[in-house]
């Protein structure tokens, strides 16, 4: 299983699929595609589409 990382264009926060985001209700291993489209960056509230693939 390969995991990817996505970075927020506004605040540089990284979403790592391997780690998920437990505080946001996403368990480790949650794929980026499985995160709802209306989810927003927990740091700066940018939208999901403002994240770009980094690795």
């Amino acid at each position, binding site marked *: 299983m390969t995991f990817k990382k996505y970075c927020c*264009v*506004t*605040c*540089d926060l990284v979403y790592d699929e391997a780690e998920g985001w437990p*505080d*946001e*209700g996403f368990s480790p291993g949650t794929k980026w595609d499985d995160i709802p489209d209306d989810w927003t960056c*927990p*740091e*700066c*509230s*940018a939208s999901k589409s403002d994240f770009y693939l980094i690795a």
Partner: protein
Amino acid sequence: MSIVIIGAGHAGLTLAREIRANSKTTEITIISRDVIRGYYKPNLSKALSMNKTPDQLIMKSAETIAQDLNAKLLSNVTVVDIDSERKEVRGLFNDNGNDSEESRIMTIPYHSLVLATGASPIQLPIERDSRTELLSINNLEDYEVFRRGVEQKKKVLIIGAGFVGCELASDLISNGYDVDMVDLCEWPLQRSMPEVMGTEIKKAMTEQGVKWHLGKTLTSVTTNQHKVKVACLSDGTEIQTDAIVSAVGLVPNTRLASEAGVIVQRGIEVDGLSQTNQADIYALGDCVEYKGVTLPFIMPATYAAKALAKTLTGTETTLALPVLPVAVKISACSTVVCPSLDKKGIWEVQGAGMNLEAHFINEEGFMSGFALTGQCITRKNQLVAECLPVFY
């Protein structure tokens, strides 16, 4: 179509990015009196903990931004005035001591003008002599000055126990500094949380070593013969410190707007389309007010930038602001606040110890804001769904 943006903070740069995402051909010019650099302003109050120097906070240089956005960037240019009839702005290259004023001046025409001039730190009337600096941190330049000022030093005094003051105190105390906090309020973050919650934060930060001087004001600061700053409080207490930072809030930068005939209250007055009373002049970010309220946060500026970019590229889009949760980076106590724009109401609190959930219930009986600490911060998304949207 040519769009001129005055200001290269988060609002101005996000707007430029969104315009470019919607239109390949629109000409974009961004004017800033400072050197244009892309960085995330909230990081200024947590950079020590991120183990970053001011330079390392820069995410994008002017060159990268200009290239990525295919935009014209004018750094170090101060806009002198706006001619709303001829639709042009006059800018002046900052004085380098060599060039005459005539050679430094430039005229920039626009179809649409956007004011993203930001806000400036409120200066409290504190008595001080000319060699005693009172710092405030509202941009990267300010932060560079601050970091140089506290290098190899031990003690920092902060005036203001709001978002920025508390985050900065947390950053400093976690990185080996002694911190004194002065504010007239009774508990930290008083405007966004109830007393029981603020008291828990205060307690947690006290355990880290923060010394609180609440219910007091700073009346004067001087520098003694050992180059130590001496701060005098309203109750007569004297505190010795190496640096003093004021973090007592912001006042919108509105001079250019009002001189151009734009209606200004506390901030530049805009409608749901981010439009001012003047044709083709728009405004967003920390310099504006919506229905009498200023919202000097990242998120409203992001939303306004996205909506305005659509409007300016042909799809009229009214700003809709959802609720505004803000994570306050206090290492001793995880905190999320969502300030209510309705000022009248009551707090309802549940939970125990540091793990608290507080709902702000307005006069109509609806939750219009909330605050969460400790483990309760995981309730954020649930409460966002239950809370009244901000407007439109």
